[in-house]
């Protein structure tokens, strides 16, 4: 080891110590905002609860109309809501629910797909937004019915799209890394 090597070694040690000191000082003095799971998870759940409460308030009249089977009225209000709040997937979820109740499975599937494409957390069972069970119920009913119709009308483009929507929704609910 000549003088240059020794100088470099000392310099290296000093730099490592300074850097370590800076890191420790930073860790001690600056508040950490991205801690592991518990804190963030709680914050996230609170955000979801806030959002769901806000949605419940925003869609109060529409949900009431839907519950009273005033579907036409609810649909008109939902169209207005889509214009005023285009970013909110709740409108499409409610439309899907109304279409399901009316027995219009093709449109219900389409609306669910649209909502899930807008908000992937709707099929994430780790969030309170999860609607996978209702979608699966619809899929279970729709799959048999639409497959039978498809056999009778093999060239029907609407049915092809509806079946494609079923498979899409199934894949999304199945999960995986996407």
């Amino acid at each position, binding site marked *: 080891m000549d003088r240059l090597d020794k100088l470099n070694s000392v310099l290296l040690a000093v730099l490592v110590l300074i850097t370590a000191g800076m890191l420790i000082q930073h*860790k001690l003095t*600056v508040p*950490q*905002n*991205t*801690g*592991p*799971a518990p804190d*963030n*998870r709680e914050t*996230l759940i609170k955000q979801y609860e806030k959002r769901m409460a806000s949605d419940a308030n925003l869609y109060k009249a529409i949900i009431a109309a839907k519950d009273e089977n005033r579907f036409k009225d609810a649909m008109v209000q939902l169209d207005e809501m889509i214009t005023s709040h285009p970013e909110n997937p709740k409108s499409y979820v409610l439309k899907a629910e109304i279409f399901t109740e009316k027995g219009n499975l093709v449109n219900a599937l389409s609306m669910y797909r649209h909502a899930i*494409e807008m908000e*992937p*957390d709707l099929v*994430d069972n*780790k*969030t309170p937004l999860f609607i996978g069970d209702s979608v699966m119920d619809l899929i279970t009913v729709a799959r048999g019915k639409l497959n039978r119709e498809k056999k009778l009308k093999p060239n029907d483009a609407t049915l092809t799209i509806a079946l494609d929507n*079923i*498979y*899409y929704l*199934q*894949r*999304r609910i*199945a*999960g*995986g*890394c*996407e």
Partner: protein
Amino acid sequence: MLWLKKIDLAIITGAFLGIGSVLIVLVGNPVNSGICISCFLENLAGALQFQGDLRMSYIRPELVGFVLGSFVVAKKTRRFKVTGGSSPIIRFFLGFFIIVGCAVFIGCPIKMIVRLAAGDLTAVVAVVGMMFGVWCGARYLKAGIFLERERDMPKINGYIFPFLAFMLLFFIFFQPTFIKQGQTGPAAQHAPVLLSLALGLVIGGFSQRSGLCITGGFRNFFLFREKTLLGGVLTFFVTALLISFATGQFNMGLNGQPASHLSHGWTFLAMTLVGLASVIIDGCPFRQVIKSGQGDVDAGITTMGMLAGAALVITWSIRSTSAGPEFAGKIAVMSGLIFCLFVVISYRKRITS
């Protein structure tokens, strides 16, 4: 481990991969994605804020384990050899395009086998595509087209990648502010950290010794009818299949499979790209990660290219979703194949001139 013959090691590694990649799903990893290098790199890119999708942001301890396991075993068995300098920029971009291919299929060759073993029939086309790509690559190798030989390099080059892995390990446990961890989507689906790390270390160590490589197994078979690595790959598949059955994860069909799509033509082309590019750079994405831990600087460069790819496939949507491949993904696959052919042509000219 030294008493084990190489064929045994390949089979043992395959068995570990098969068991680990299916069982880790039971303790938290995403369905059909127990181990997937491209997904893990996309998650890593998100955690480092190279891409902004928080749902895909998490440092997978398995990935760190692969590099460190390989490093420790290579050092212990005196196989840590620092080499590099073979067409680094070409390797970087081939690594990039490999991840593009994986993102359009939705999975690396490891995940392809895991998906197949779980009954996902859409992966059959991927296997055929990858085998076709490897076959093409093998033909090119036979024709004398390969990247120039690597040379010995100063030791420090070989330690950079294990050091980076060690830094990631530090980030996992100490969570500095710039590291992001998603709480929903795939990022929230993970096994306990220590378990994931242990699995990564074991598989990384065995893979370093056995040289297990998905594309390498097929390449050796196509070139020399050599079956050592292929035996490991088949063991991986059979083990994963059995464990999938035993744990009730087997669900055969084309429809409703997790993280899949029905654009089979693009699946074929995407995995052809992965197979071909992997043969040119001598190893599938998993093998590149393992080699980067054993002092192979070229593999380290490739892995950096893969990480760049992992960030951009999310940011630029060069990938597929359950709805099928995005337009940008299709163009990128075509560009990748064109790039591979340019590389092949240019290296052939260089050799014959």
